[in-house]
């Protein structure tokens, strides 16, 4: 049940409630029989709001709930509306980071948002504690991608043109030629954004 006419509910002179409630937030009235936790105005699973927002796209609630469950102590439980709520918060978070990263991109006249933009956005927005772990995860991810057939970021530069012969062009070549241990399997030499990351251990994924 939403309070319509938000103007009146947030009007300081009307409410006279302590300062913390007046900081730009608005109220949602909840019907509450005693002891009822997890009250939800909305019936449907996605917790849709009256006004459509760009955050109407959500991540699947099952995935979100699972991550939450694994984060809290094993004996803990999670109210249904808390799960739905986090689902919405997640979309908000993604948009939050993305806008910041996108802005930086524009400032630097670039069109593609890259990893650095994301990390920088996180740092700026108060999530700098995520940055170091994320860099590690990214390394592992890149390793995983290279290990599979078809390496990302493989390009043939113009400079390599001289080494190519007619014959090599007639053969259909798969993109991923250089294997993880760096052995070349054919004549063509690719330059890549391939980074040797020395000393990365194979870490266990918990």
């Amino acid at each position, binding site marked *: 049940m939403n309070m319509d006419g938000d103007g009146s509910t947030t009007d300081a002179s009307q409410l006279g409630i302590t300062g913390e409630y007046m900081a730009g937030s608005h109220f949602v009235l909840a019907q509450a029989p005693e002891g009822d936790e997890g009250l939800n105005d909305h019936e449907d699973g996605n917790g849709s709001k009256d006004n459509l927002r760009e955050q109407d796209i959500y991540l699947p609630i099952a995935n979100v709930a699972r991550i939450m469950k694994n984060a809290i102590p094993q004996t803990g439980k999670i109210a249904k509306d808390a799960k739905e*709520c986090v689902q919405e918060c997640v979309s908000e*978070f993604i948009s939050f980071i993305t806008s910041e990263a996108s802005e930086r991109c524009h400032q630097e006249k670039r069109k593609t948002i890259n990893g650095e933009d994301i990390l920088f956005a996180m740092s700026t927005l108060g999530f700098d504690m995520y940055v170091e772990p994320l860099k590690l995860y*990214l390394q592992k991810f890149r390793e995983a991608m290279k290990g599979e057939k078809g390496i990302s970021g493989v390009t043939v530069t113009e400079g390599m043109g001289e080494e190519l012969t007619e014959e090599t062009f007639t053969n259909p070549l798969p993109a991923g030629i250089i294997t993880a241990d760096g052995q070349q399997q054919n004549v063509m030499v690719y330059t890549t954004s391939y980074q040797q990351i020395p000393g990365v251990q194979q870490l266990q994924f918990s």
Partner: protein
Amino acid sequence: MSEKTMEEKVEQATNSKNVSLPMSRVRLIMKSSPDVSCINQDALFLTTKATELFVQHLALSSYKNGSGKETNTLSYSDLANAAEETETFQFLTDILPKKILARDYLKSLEEMKKDDDSL
């Protein structure tokens, strides 16, 4: 390399490398931001992974600070409180309005009225 192949590879990496949120959906959400044209693969991965960290962070933080300690349950109000009290989560206050009981609200309105009358 076609987009589709790349997406398949990303999904493969997703499955085998412990990313538990669908990157394609994350991309959709990112694209719904205005003025976003291209997102490179690293950026997509980092965002997805960061989102996992965020969920863990938000859930645990809210649970610890909230009534969960007694009731053992993470509730909506725990989240709303976390949003208000923790600086990092303040961007969520708009979508996490605090819910108050109707009778409490009416009571405070009455009290306001009384104060006005007594002036």
